[in-house]
């Protein structure tokens, strides 16, 4: 009997702060296994205490020989985040989840701590070399969104193809009646702009907000809610297990996603699969690939009063919200792991057994 193809998923681990990327690579590995591929996940933490740690992490990946294990060849490697794609393999496919953004599009913004120092400049240059090397030798490069593909082209001159996939709990999201709260899900950190939905509440007196997530901005946001006088209308949920999250989506009125330049963002897809429209901003990045103003949600300028106006509308127009949610559900339902896995395997010259 022919042995199933062996595929390694190469990913970066973030100990104690596993987020969407970690869930994604686990799910990718599971989906490969579910289709008869002998797949496994290799993860190495990305240490970021000092600049050289970034180079050292790439060196670790580059030093690995993953061409065979236990006397059997590895047929393909699917690498994902910086610097896992520095790994060497003759049949490497890269599915870029995101680059080291602080060195690229976030450089010069409050979200990057890179300065003009010689070491920071050299680190940025080295990251570019690592990206060029790791990606240009791949058999094919995919990006998880058009936004990420555009960055690869702009900063590295590398062509890639957007490849979407369903969100982590695909198959388990459920719809429910319109609730009485807007939902915000995500790490409470600067570039995700969790303050925007809070500030929007001050412009929409009837709206309530559920904030799911924790992060470095938590204390500041709670103080902000008090200062804005909206704290009584905000419910904070630092961590939600899967079932709680599914319930929160199903029971929401709409979902607010207000990051700046998000890579893809699962939240809009999760909202859609729960039948809820999404309120996002014109500079949100990845979410705009799914959220179409007036069709599947609201797209407004990144200003509290604009988000507030959209919230007021959402609390007045049940019929419109239901229609937006229905179209979002149809759009997100088009994504399937069958198609995604088929594309990745075909790029590696493999087939589903």
């Amino acid at each position: 009997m022919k042995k199933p193809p062996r595929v390694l998923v190469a990913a970066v681990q973030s100990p104690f702060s596993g987020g969407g990327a970690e869930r994604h690579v686990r799910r990718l590995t599971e989906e490969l296994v579910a289709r008869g591929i002998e797949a496994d996940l290799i993860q190495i933490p990305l240490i970021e205490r000092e600049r050289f740690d970034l180079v050292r992490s790439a060196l670790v990946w580059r030093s690995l020989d993953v061409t065979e294990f236990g006397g059997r060849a590895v047929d393909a490697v699917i690498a994902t985040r910086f610097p896992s794609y520095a790994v060497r393999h003759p049949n490497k496919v890269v599915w870029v989840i995101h680059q080291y953004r602080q060195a690229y599009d976030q450089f010069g913004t409050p979200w990057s701590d890179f300065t003009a120092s010689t070491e920071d400049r050299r680190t940025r240059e080295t990251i570019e070399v690592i990206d060029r090397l790791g990606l240009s030798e791949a058999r094919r490069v995919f990006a998880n969104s058009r936004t990420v593909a555009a960055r690869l082209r702009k900063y590295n001159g590398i062509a890639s193809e957007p490849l979407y996939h369903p969100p982590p709990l695909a198959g388990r999201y459920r719809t429910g009646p319109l609730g009485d709260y807007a939902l915000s899900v995500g790490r409470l950190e600067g570039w995700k702009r969790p303050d925007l939905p809070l500030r929007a509440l001050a412009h929409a007196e009837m709206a309530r907000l559920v904030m799911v997530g924790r992060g470095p901005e938590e204390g500041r946001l709670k103080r902000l809610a008090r200062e804005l006088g909206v704290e009584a209308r905000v419910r904070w949920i630092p961590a939600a297990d899967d079932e709680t999250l599914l319930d929160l989506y199903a029971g929401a009125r709409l979902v607010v996603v207000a990051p700046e330049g998000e890579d893809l963002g699962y939240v809009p897809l999760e909202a859609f699969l729960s039948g809820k429209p999404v309120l996002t901003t014109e500079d949100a990045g990845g979410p705009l690939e799914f959220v179409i103003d007036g069709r599947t949600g609201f797209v407004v300028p990144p200003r509290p009063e604009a988000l507030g106006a959209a919230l007021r509308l959402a609390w007045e127009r049940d019929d419109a919200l239901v229609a937006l949610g229905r179209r979002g559900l149809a759009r997100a339902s088009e994504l399937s792991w069958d198609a995604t896995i088929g594309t990745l395997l075909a790029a590696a010259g493999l087939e589903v057994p």
Partner: protein
Amino acid sequence: MRTDPDDWMRLGRESGRILGELGVDAEDTRWIRKHAESIASLARRARPNLLGYLSRLARKAARRAR
């Protein structure tokens, strides 16, 4: 596990070459020193001159790889 001193030299040369491939320059002396320290820390009883020797090896290998 017993290791031959040649193993450290080989590791120094190989990893120096990879650093060069990844964009590290022989002039990035602080990084190369740190890297040499990592390798030297693997040696149970480092010879006093091992660190300096590894640094030179890694720099040379990085220069060649560029």
